[in-house]
Each structure stands twice: as structure tokens, then as C-alpha cells.
């Protein structure tokens, strides 16, 4: 395990170094795509902490992301708070919303938890549309401040954010708490019999997931300059995040980020296919889920491991 871990660290460092140098090669357009993909990667990693480790399928990652994004957007455009304060507030809002959702929802078993999280997204979506005077409604709202107008700087912000989140989440997944969380997710009865309060650990995982999702949501709108239902709340976005995480590899954290980047970049490169492009990407995702249920990274790391 130690060997595997150090291998991951080295590969990771090399990938980050190459990624950091990309602005010297790529056009501003491609950098823009990668920038969005990196924020998307954080969404997917935060989701994998819940699905891969806590064993709970959260169909509403965009509830947490949307809470963060809209909190930041409203604070910035209505109250004129500076970006760092907005991002911190967004993180708190997402965690508070996450607790409000998770504590009652975790009392339910199996598919009901997933359904509750799905309904939460629809509620948020409706809320945004109904209170259009504050939220901009279906058109979305423009934020006055942006991170930067330079594509390279925006790219480096996103990359740095992704790397920090990846290190924190990956480290957490490999920590003692991560071990307890995995045990709770895979065998809740067994974990309880070993003296672990399974609900407490799952709620904590939900909070951590919300923290990262909300922060990333806020960062994303300060990159794009707008917040809209279609980009940060819609169920379609939630589905994309889920596909990205499963594609990259359940229980790997880093795989989720790879899956997200792959998904967005593939979507972009297949754009010439027109309508067909979404279809091809979906078909690839379906193929991977059917034939490599452990995902791409999961398959690469755990070949030969069979239950």
C-alpha cells in the first residue's frame, strides 16, 4: 500500500506540473474549457466521498453546489461583499444546507435517501425561479466581481483550487476517519458493533462534501461571472457529476477528478458531431459503467482484486 501510495503521489505531481505549464501551449478557449472542468472535478470528488466512502448515493450534489453558488452571487451583487468573504459564506451556507438535508434524510434507508436529495434539488430550483427578484430567476444573475479577466490566471486559480481540494479530500479518505467512514458505508452493522456512531460519521462526510461543493460552486460563478440554474443547480448537471465520478472510479477520489475532466473535454472535442456528441459521451460512460464498474482509475489500480 505504501508503494502504491507513493506511486500515486509521484504520478500526481507530474500531472500537476504538466497541467500548470499548459497555458504556455493552449489557446484561451481550451484553457477556458479546462478551467470549468477543474471546478467540475472538485464537484465529482466531493460526491465520491459520499458515494464511494460513506456509501450513500446523493442524487443532489447540485443542491449543495447551488446553495454555495447562489449565496456567493447574492452576497456579491446585492451587498457588494468582496470575493473571499463571499466564498467563505458560500461554504458555510452549503454546510448548513447539507446538515439540514442530511440529518433527517439519513434516518431513511436505501433508495429513500437518494430520493430526498433529488427532491432537494428540485426545491432549490423552484426557489430560485420563484424568488426571481433576488436570484435572477431563470435568466440567472450576473456578479459584478470576477476572479480575473485573464484566461491563464483563471486557469491557474482553478488548477490550484483543484489540487488543494484533491490533496485534502484524498488525505481525508486515507486517514483514520476515512477508514471508519468506509467501514460505515460498507457494513453499517459491523461498524456499529465496533463502537462507531455510523450516523455521526455519515453526517460529517455530508458536511465535508457540502463544504467542498459549496466552495467550488462559488469559485465557479466568480470565474464565469454569472450564476444560473442551468449551470449550477439543474438535475442534468447533477447527473453529469455522478457519471464523472463513476466513470473515473468509485472510492478513489482522484479518479472522480479525472472522470470530470475527461467528460468535459470529450464533450468539447466531439462538438463537431453536433447533437450526436452528447450521445457518444453518454454511450462511452455507459460502456465504462457496464464493463468497468470500478471506473477507469479503479480498474487500473485494483486489477486482479475480485470478490
Amino acid at each position, binding site marked *: 500500500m505504501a508503494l502504491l501510495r507513493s506511486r500515486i503521489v509521484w504520478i500526481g505531481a507530474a500531472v500537476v506540473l504538466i497541467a500548470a505549464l499548459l497555458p504556455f501551449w493552449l489557446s484561451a478557449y481550451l484553457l477556458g474549457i479546462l478551467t470549468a472542468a477543474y471546478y467540475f472535478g472538485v464537484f465529482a470528488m466531493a460526491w465520491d466521498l459520499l458515494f464511494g466512502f460513506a456509501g450513500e448515493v446523493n442524487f443532489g450534489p447540485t443542491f449543495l453546489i447551488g446553495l454555495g453558488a447562489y449565496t456567493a452571487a447574492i452576497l456579491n451583487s446585492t451587498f457588494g461583499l468582496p470575493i473571499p468573504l463571499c466564498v467563505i459564506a458560500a461554504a458555510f451556507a452549503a454546510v448548513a444546507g447539507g446538515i439540514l438535508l442530511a440529518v433527517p434524510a439519513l434516518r431513511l434507508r436505501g433508495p429513500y435517501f437518494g430520493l430526498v436529495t433529488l427532491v432537494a434539488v428540485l426545491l432549490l430550483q423552484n426557489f430560485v425561479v420563484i424568488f426571481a427578484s433576488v436570484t435572477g430567476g431563470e435568466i440567472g444573475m450576473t456578479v459584478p466581481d470576477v476572479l480575473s479577466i485573464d484566461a491563464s490566471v483563471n486557469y491557474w486559480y482553478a488548477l490550484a483550487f483543484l489540487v488543494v481540494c484533491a490533496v485534502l479530500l484524498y488525505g481525508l479518505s486515507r486517514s*483514520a*476517519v476515512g*477508514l471508519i467512514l*468506509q467501514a460505515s458505508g460498507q457494513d453499517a452493522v*459491523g*461498524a*456499529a*458493533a*465496533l463502537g462507531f456512531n455510523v450516523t455521526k460519521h455519515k453526517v460529517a462526510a455530508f458536511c465535508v462534501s457540502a463544504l467542498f461543493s459549496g466552495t467550488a460552486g462559488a469559485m465557479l460563478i466568480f470565474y464565469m461571472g454569472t450564476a444560473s440554474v442551468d449551470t449550477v443547480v439543474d438535475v442534468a448537471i447533477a447527473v453529469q457529476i455522478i457519471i464523472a465520478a463513476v466513470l473515473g472510479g468509485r*472510492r478513489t477520489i482522484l479518479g472522480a477528478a479525472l472522470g470530470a475532466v475527461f467528460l468535459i473535454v470529450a464533450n468539447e472535442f466531439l462538438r463537431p458531431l453536433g447533437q450526436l456528441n452528447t450521445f457518444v459521451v453518454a454511450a462511452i460512460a455507459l460502456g465504462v459503467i457496464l464493463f468497468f464498474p470500478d471506473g477507469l482509475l479503479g480498474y487500473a489500480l485494483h486489477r486482479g482484486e475480485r470478490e
Partner: protein
Amino acid sequence: MSGAVRLQVSGLGKRFGGVVAVKNMNFELRAGEITGLIGPNGSGKSTVMSLIMGLVRPNSGAVKLDGVDIAGWPAHRIARAGVSIVFQHSRPLQRQTVLENVKLALLPDSLLQLATEATAAQRARAIAERVGLGGVLQRHPWTLPFADLRRMELAKAVARDPKVVLIDEPFAGLTTTEIRVFSDLIRTLRDEGRAVLLVDHSVKSVAALADRVIAMYLGEHIAEGSADEVMQNETVRRVYIGGAIEAVERKGVAAEAAATLLDVDAVEVFYGKANALDRVALRVQQDEFVSIVGLNGAGKTTLFNAISGLVPYRGAIRFAGRDLKSLTAAAIARAGVVHCPETRELFGYMSVRENLDLGGGHLSKAERERQLAWVFDLFPILEQRQTQAARTLSGGEQQMLTLGRALMMQPKLLILDEPTLGLAPVILGQLSKAIERLRQERSLTLLLAEQNVTFALPHSDRVYVLDHGRITWHGDPVRFAQEMSTGYL
């Protein structure tokens, strides 16, 4: 040798829907003593264990650990208070090593501890070495043989120095040598002053180890004492063997004359690494009633699941000359092999009538009405309870409904898995009469699995004895009564 009372159970009771699983249980576990809790399958012993551990909440009664009532606490608090459990089936973390799996048990229930303490790793190593896992610390659980997985579960259970250790089926799936090693390990736990509870289905397997044995039947305490006393106890003997064995000689079916309906040929089943069936071969002729007797864990249910296409197997199973291996479970059932599992698998939230109608779903309306009338005639109580949800029925009524639903499918071969499971003697009499009527009124072949020999013998033309996945005896019921009645328990 035995010390203070560690755990005191009083008036413990638990109901599941209409089924009473545990009724007014009273007993105590002492420090430095190994207690065996035995009872046939369905007697409620596992529920008692789950109630102590807090995996299931009791309806009534108290469980006192060193004087503190822990009944109704969540499992993690009970575990922290000093009770631990060794599950029969382990579900280890597959991506972690053996050492990491043991270390997990040593972690505090805290959200802030990110790194394991250095001492935790040392302690985990010491515990793992003590149970004999020293050589495989860095391996992953999926590469381990079955006995080592059990060792790992034991290591996890004793890691945090519990006062009370509950062990479910301590020797299931182990070889004779492994049983010896495990017995020694369990004795060590006693010598360290822990209270140990072994939960098992037979007296025999815990007799050598237990200082005291408690026997359960139908959720109630029926006997207590040394292993010998309990084995001699009249009630216990009646529960296990079903009283005096009476064989009824049947005119039966001439073995050569009748066609073979079911032919099980050298069937082997593995659960992971445990060999559940070892080259089992048996035949059932047309219109014959055949019993398979054997204690819980012998492999009866596995054999039936293989016949019904529910578990993969090696070897061949032929029904009316047709190889069943290529058929799905549903196709096998439609071909006329109808299985009443011991877990009954009723549709709990549907009414009695809906359960029966589903069984007869493939029949024409007129035929279904006729079949239903016959089932109601066989079990009049079902007719009275037509609109009641199946889960609210009592255990005996649920068994009748299971049988009724199976008969609605007009089976050619009816497979009955432990129909007497957890049922009171008066219900057994009713079931017995119903089975006798089946033989007289319908052309039906029956394959019956039982640990209650007295229930099985009067209904059998032939008997097979299954023990640890092997057929160890085969003959007619009269010979069984002569040869096997001793030494079976």
C-alpha cells in the same frame, strides 16, 4: 473459576410483526465463564444475541451490563460499554490489509483523529499475532482462506478489550483442526476473565467448550446446566429429535419401477472458500416422499437453492430428464419445481389472498378458483384471514400460507425447507396432517428438509442424512429409527 455476573438479561422480549421471536428470556453471563446458547434454527437465539448487542431493539425487558441497563441503547454505545460480537459472516474492508482491518477496531469514535496513533498499529499487530494472523498482516482479506477471515473477525472483536464477547456459530465452516485452534483461542478469552457467549444450533459443537449451556426453543428458555445435563434433558431431546422416533413403514413406490423425477448428481457448492456441498448425489422417484435430515448448517438449504437455480454449482441436476443448469430460477419454478424456503419469503405487505393469487397467477380463472378452494379446505385458517397482511400472521399461519402459495403453483415436485422452523407442537400436528392429505389427494412428489426427525419420518419413503455438506447415510425410515436414532443429536 467463574466470577461476578457481567451481563444480566431479564424479561427480554421481541416481536417481529405477528411473530414472537423472544419471550421473557432470563439468564446471566459471568466473568471468566463460557456459556453456550443453543436452540434449533428459528428458536430465537440469534435474536437474543442481536438484542444484547443493540442491533435490534427489544420490546420489553432489561439487559444489565455490570448493573447498567443497556437495553435499547444504539449498538455503538453498547460496543463502547464493553460488549463485542463475532459475526458468522464477515464483510471486511477489501481494499485494506489485514492489519488495517484490525486497526480499524482500535480507532476512537472521533471525527478529528486523522492519523492513527503509532501505538494503535503496534497493538493491532500484537492482537493479530495472538490469533495467528502474524504471517498475513499485509495481505488483503480476499486472498485469505476462510479460517483466517474468522480469525480476523475474532481479532477485531477482542481488540478493544471487551467484557462480554458474543460469538455467532463459532465453528461453522471450519475443519476439525481449525475447530481445535479456535476452541483454544476462545478458552484464552475466558482465562482473561471475559464473559463469553457461544451461540450455536447444536449442543454437540459447544459441549467441549461451554461451562454452562442454555437451551432455547420458540423464543423461550427451556433448559440450563452443564452440556451433559442439557443433552439428557427430556424437553431438549423432544425439541431436537421431536420425542420418540416412530417410523411408519410405507408401502411406498417400488424404486426400480417408478421413473426418476429428480436426479442430483455429484453437486458441489462453494461460498467463497467454504465448501457447503461436497459431491452430493440423490434421487427422487415420481410420487415419492423423500426427507433430508441434518442439523442446521449441514447444507440442506444450499442443496435446495442449487436445485431451484438460486446458487451456482458444479455437477448436474436433472428434473424429469432435463438438465436444470441452463434454466433460470423462474423457468425451473414454471417447470414444476416449487420451493418453499425456510425464510418463507412471503410478500409481507400483501394480503393472504394476494399472496395466494400470485402463486396461482399462471392458472386460468376457473382452475385458480378450484385450486384456491382446495387450499382453503386444507388450511381453513387462511380463508378466515384472506384480507390480512401476510406479515401480521403468526409464525404457524405464515408457514401455512407459504405452503398454500406453493400449492397454488400446482407443483410436480414440492421442496419444503424446514417447515417446522420455530413452530409450536400444535401447529406441527396441523402441518403434518396437511402433508398426509397431500399424499392422498394429489399426485405429488415431495422433498423435505428437516432437523426435526419425528416430523420428517412419518412422511418419508426414504431418508438421506446430510452432515457438513456430505450425504452420510441413506435408507428407509424404519432402518433410520434403528440405526440413527442414537448419535444423531
